[in-house]
């Protein structure tokens, strides 16, 4: 059974069919790229998969369970995490608190246990504090734990957002243009990071990106859409030479 099984989903915005007949499967540990021209519907697909939009047609299954119409937080509980095209951090919280917030679903203690500071509170808090710092450590960000998120440079904010997504211990990670606004040097580092994430956390990654060096460099297979429809699928090498894709997206 595939981790993610999407069948023929589509959505319409006031007459505009932004996405139609979109299907995709994701196996554990895969690294797949979703590319296509501006306005093709990539972000919209992410939004449907994560419960931000409700698809007007089709069906989404995560680990075999139907996920249509679930709320975003319920999708997270199904093991899906994402980042956003425009970074969305908890800007005024520290880096550490950004991460800790994302551990919410793994914690159990009640309000009473919290305000009476019963053992459950201390145990779980100590546990996530350790896990959060460990996670930051993996991304070489332990130094920044107490920095306010908004005060960090752009590149680190992107990294933090990914880190926060990982804190929900997902099986699948959706990244929306993680390399936007990064220079080639930083993009190269990001490639390593993504590889590292996949290997370390054993997650499947679905990635939207316009930076071809990154997409072609790390994706195992690609799905190309235009006007909300899939126009090509395949290995990077195949896509690179696909005429339709060149014409609509890559340019000469």
């Amino acid at each position: 059974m595939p981790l993610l099984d999407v069948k023929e989903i589509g959505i319409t915005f006031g007459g505009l069919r932004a996405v139609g007949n979109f299907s995709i499967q994701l196996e554990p540990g895969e690294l797949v790229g979703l590319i296509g021209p501006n306005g093709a519907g990539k972000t919209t697909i992410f939004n449907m998969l994560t419960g931000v939009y409700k698809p007007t047609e089709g069906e989404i299954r995560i680990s075999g369970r139907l996920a249509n119409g679930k709320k975003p937080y319920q999708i997270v509980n199904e093991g899906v995490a994402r980042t956003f095209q425009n970074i969305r951090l908890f800007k005024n919280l520290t880096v550490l608190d950004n991460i800790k917030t994302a551990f919410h679903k793994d914690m159990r203690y009640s309000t009473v246990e919290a305000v009476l500071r019963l053992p459950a509170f201390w145990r779980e808090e100590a546990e996530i504090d350790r896990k959060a710092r460990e996670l930051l450590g993996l991304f070489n960000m332990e130094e920044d734990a107490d920095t306010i998120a908004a005060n960090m440079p752009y590149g680190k904010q992107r990294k933090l957002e990914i880190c926060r997504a990982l804190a929900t211990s997902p099986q699948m990670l959706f990244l929306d243009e993680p390399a936007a606004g990064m220079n080639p040097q930083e993009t190269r580092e990001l490639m390593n990071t993504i590889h590292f994430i996949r290997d370390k956390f054993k997650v499947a990654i679905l990635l939207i990106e316009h930076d071809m060096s990154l997409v072609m460099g790390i994706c195992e297979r690609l799905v190309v859409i235009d006007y909300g429809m899939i126009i090509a699928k395949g290995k990077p090498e195949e896509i690179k030479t696909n005429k339709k894709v060149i014409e609509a997206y890559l340019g000469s």
Partner: protein
Amino acid sequence: MGMGVVNNYMTGILIFTGINIIMAASLNLATGYLGQLVLGHAGFMAIGAYAAALFALNTEMPDLPTLVGGMAIGGAVAGLFGILIGIPALRLRGDYLGIVTLGFGEIIRIALLNLPFTGGAAGLRRIPKLVNFNILYVAVVLTITFLFLFVRSRHGRAIHSIKEDEIAAESVGIPTTFYKVYGFAVSAFLAGVGGSLFAFYQSILDPRKFTFMLSVEFFIIVVLGGMGSITGTILAALLLSFANEFLYSVENFRLVIYALLLITMMIFKPDGLLGTREFSLNGLLDRVKTLVGKSFPKSKR
């Protein structure tokens, strides 16, 4: 007699300041932490006050059970209304929610004037006077401690993340719907408790008290102290109370000066007295150190 330092007058002011602290701190949960504009907090207070008073007037129990029971009932009924008002909050954002809560506060006030069992314009009288300075002091400490511990837990983090970015909060698995309603309910519950304390101290309830302006008073304390700073709330409540008492010496100009004071303070400290920080002795020491450091820059090298 003759000691005069803490006389009835001072005690009275401290008691009402204490009630203001409970009210503003509970409002701070909804506004400062959850990030929702609430302009009808006096409504929750009124509900708590009337519920507790009606309970006390209709039972014959010893003082302590009446007090505790009244507080619990006042808090619970107000909390219930908090859930009720939390539901539109799910769909409304920012200022729209502000106006809904304002409307809610007014509806409550009008209801108190018109319902058969609230005494109408005359209000309720002869409510047992069960609260004194010590009891109130304990209540304030408990409320503040509760809030402090609550916001520093996973629930508090979840509530805070909604203020920061609701969409992002959902995306990391926070059930935002639940936590919005929960935040409202807790805030309203504490306001109800504040109301019941008020009823048991004042011993009469006058519906004129619970106007929009009272809600505004709490709101001002929260913003002035710093949204998301509980110690800031305490500081601001004390400051405003004493400023107000002091200004009685310029009686006729009192509110004019008070208004100017507000405007000036906001302009010079737009984030409130403490911003989102909490007052702590350690923090104070650190600040003193950096200040000292700044004035002797060479010593740094």
